[in-house]
């Protein structure tokens, strides 16, 4: 009785219109290609525009000299040093916490509300504008809520040995050993800048590390457990070594984001003329993008057009190198499961 209800499906009803659909296909293809090429075209134009202005000014003085009032002498030695040290510190600060959080979330976290909340929170932090991190850094690291001003209740309560000085902060010595010195608040120091940058990239580090850890197939973990291995052993001797190249790649890419960040450091007061190399991590500093911004704001066209472009070129080369290393690492250690 069902069969009677069947309406015949007739091929004649199909007007396939193959040729018209193939035309639509071709047009669509061209539109898509254009949208990809637009981005790449812009990248090319941008690089050419900058290279034309700056290539001749990438010369030894750029690396050997500090900023000078004479464009022909001007360089960005302290900015390069500042960028490198801040980036290294940023890596140092964000790596353990970021990877730790990634391990926790991938390997330990139970499926519960708190975990959901942490996940949501991390995604959220990844979308917080960098300038907001600058404001966080200013208040928390730069000023430390004013807790360490001379007569604050906090200082009085804990009897903190504060030594007033014209260093942008106060310092106290731990056990009188200079390398343990800590300046409170962190003021405009590299430590403050790097801590701020660490928070800024932390969500990216966590997300990238999680991906690397997740890419290790569960079968590897099972193989480990089945041999009588504890959880931390499985993670420490199997998962992390395998995920490490991926984690490192994510780390480098995150740092390459940090190295170009300007706004948070401006908020923290890193827009400074620093004609010396830092001696300690508590020194004032400036970084390459700020030096570029500084040059863009100077009156002489040599700075605005040429030196700024030269600085940008250096920054771009550093970025390309970091990206290149990341891609290389990814390729080299890629495992075909």
């Amino acid at each position: 009785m069902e069969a009677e209800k069947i309406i015949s499906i007739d091929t004649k009803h199909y007007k396939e219109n193959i040729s018209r659909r193939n035309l639509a296909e071709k047009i669509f293809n061209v539109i898509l290609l254009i949208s990809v090429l637009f981005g790449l075209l812009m990248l090319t134009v941008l690089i050419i525009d900058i290279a034309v202005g700056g290539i001749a000014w990438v010369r030894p003085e750029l690396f050997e000299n500090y900023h000078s009032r004479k464009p022909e002498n001007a360089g960005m030695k302290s900015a390069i040093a500042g960028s490198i040290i801040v980036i290294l510190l940023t890596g140092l600060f964000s790596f353990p916490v970021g990877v730790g959080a990634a391990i926790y979330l991938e390997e330990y976290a139970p499926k519960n509300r708190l975990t959901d909340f942490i996940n949501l929170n991390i995604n959220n932090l990844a979308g917080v504008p960098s300038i907001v991190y600058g404001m966080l850094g200013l208040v928390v690291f730069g000023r430390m809520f004013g807790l360490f001003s001379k007569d604050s209740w906090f200082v009085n309560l804990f009897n903190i040995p504060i030594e007033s000085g014209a260093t942008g902060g106060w310092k106290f010595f731990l056990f009188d050993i200079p390398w343990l010195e800590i300046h409170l608040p962190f003021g405009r120091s590299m430590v403050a800048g790097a801590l701020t940058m660490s928070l800024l990239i932390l969500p990216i580090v966590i997300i990238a590390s999680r991906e690397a850890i997740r890419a290790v197939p569960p079968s590897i973990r099972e193989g480990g457990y089945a041999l009588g291995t504890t959880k931390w052993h499985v993670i420490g001797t199997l998962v992390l070594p395998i995920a490490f190249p991926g984690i490192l790649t994510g780390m480098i890419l995150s740092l390459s984001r940090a190295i170009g960040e300007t706004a948070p450091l401006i908020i923290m007061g890193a827009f400074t003329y620093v004609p010396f190399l830092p001696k300690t991590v508590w020194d004032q500093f400036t970084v390459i993008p700020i030096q570029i911004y500084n040059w863009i704001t100077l009156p002489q066209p040599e700075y605005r057009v040429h030196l700024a472009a030269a600085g940008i070129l250096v920054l771009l080369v550093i970025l390309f190198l970091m990206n290149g290393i990341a891609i290389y690492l990814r390729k080299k250690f890629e495992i075909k499961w």
Partner: protein
Amino acid sequence: MLKNLSKSSFISFYNPQRVRNLRERIIAITLFGCGVFSILVTIGIIISLFSEAIGFFLRPEVNLITFLTGTNWRPLASQVSPENFGVRPLIRGTLMIAVISGSIALPLGLGSAIYLSEYASDRLRSILKPSLELLAGIPTVVYGYFALSFVTPILKVVLEDQLGIRVSFFNAFSAAVVVGIMIIPIVASISEDAMRAVPRSLREGAYALGATKFEVSTKVVVPAALSGIISAFIIGISRAIGETMAVTIAAGATPRMTLNPLDGIQTMTAFIVQVSFGDAPSGSINGQSIFAVGATLFMMTFVMNIISASILKRFREVYE
């Protein structure tokens, strides 16, 4: 030839179970601390922004209503009064950047994503995608510089000289164009991930019914990945809203209630940078005003992030 596997060699090996369990436990707690740290960061952001912002709103010279509704933003004027603290010009400037850059980046980003995910060969894709992502990695100072030295002059030549439309040297449009270029890869990358997460079996199902690639892409893949794509859009837009240096350099510094993108404007972020060069210390009204603006900015992106996260979550659930 078989050597005897002595089980006894294994008996002595274990550190006592208790010691081992203690170690496992300490590790787990440490890692938990790392996981929870991100919550501390959020709390830190909220405290640092809002503690100062609340001080701002508690001042007699300002109030929350005129802050949110007022159309004049003159916090630097010497006479401090509520009508000089209307944040809407900054919000409008910010949104103008977001809308224009979005209308550039969203279609181009989506087009790029479709191309990369559906059309490009693996090799082409492995070249195109990182190149495109370089765009996102370029410091935004560079984009500002590019806007001033390249985009604005072109606008001047094309619009002002040829068509007689006035183009301010500092204008929202140039800044928005470069911000748009900057967020293309963000939109493209996240959308592409969403589209590649659509199982190949769905594409095959459609091909097997006699669909062309165009039909498969637009009628199956894009709809299936829609929430991921929307979320990419939101993330891109929220990036544009938070963008700082490019708009500081190229969009001008005039908090203006305008709808003309060829005028100079000021965004929330640019205002914060502007005041920061005054290194306003805690307590002064200028110093507090940036925290009020910062808090507003944070709330805007926060809401957008929450929305995109919830969309993305629902999307992931479909295929898991």
